[in-house]
């Protein structure tokens, strides 16, 4: 199934892109599954997603945990802890 994946701030700079449509196997249809799928690409992907203490995830604009399920067309964003205000 296809989902839209976004990266922000230093994660966006390190993987070199802001947005991508990713086709993931149905067996990987959670946040954790998507993360492992992307880490298999190696390089910056592996590096950026290896330490989830410094990565936050949102599914369809809401903060989400690793076990959050994914559905076709979902928008998943990976970003560092926020620093606004």
């Amino acid at each position, binding site marked *: 199934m296809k989902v839209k994946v976004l990266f922000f*701030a230093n994660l966006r700079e390190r993987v070199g892109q802001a947005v991508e449509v990713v086709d993931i196997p149905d067996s990987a249809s959670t946040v954790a599954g998507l993360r492992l799928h992307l880490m298999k690409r190696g390089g910056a992907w592996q590096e950026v997603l290896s330490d989830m203490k410094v990565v936050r995830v949102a599914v369809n604009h809401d903060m989400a945990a690793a076990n959050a399920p994914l559905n076709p067309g979902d928008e998943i964003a990976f970003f*560092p802890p926020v620093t606004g205000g």
Partner: protein
Amino acid sequence: MKIAVQSDDFDVSTEIIEISGNPRIGAVASFVGIVRDVPMTLEHYPGMTENAITKIVEEARTRWQVLDLAVIHRFGELQPGDQIVLVAIASAHRADAFAACQFIMDYLKTQAPFWKKEHHPDGARWVNALESDDEAAARWRGIKQQQRLVQK
């Protein structure tokens, strides 16, 4: 009630006048965040940002009397001295206005998807999140439990 995420600057007195019209209002508390020391770029997540701020505001309204409010957060290129964020709360009395204002700022710092990149003379770097910000937001969870006990 106004929630805005914008690149443009804002005028504090105009925003305060806008939320002070209700004759039940006896107090307005406001906070303005300002860029310190170095220029910065503020990135955000369009769509989620407004959603996150709305949720924080809704939570504040369950805890305190909020008769009107304005939350404005800027993004884009900002210079030292520029205004970044405004939180202004109108209520009948000052205690609710002060508390709701501080609560919303503490939660914005940890929940709203903004990221600061500072432009130092020796290069640009992303600002790291502070543990003290997480602690400031976490403090309110304990206060919520106390509020529930008092209501019982």
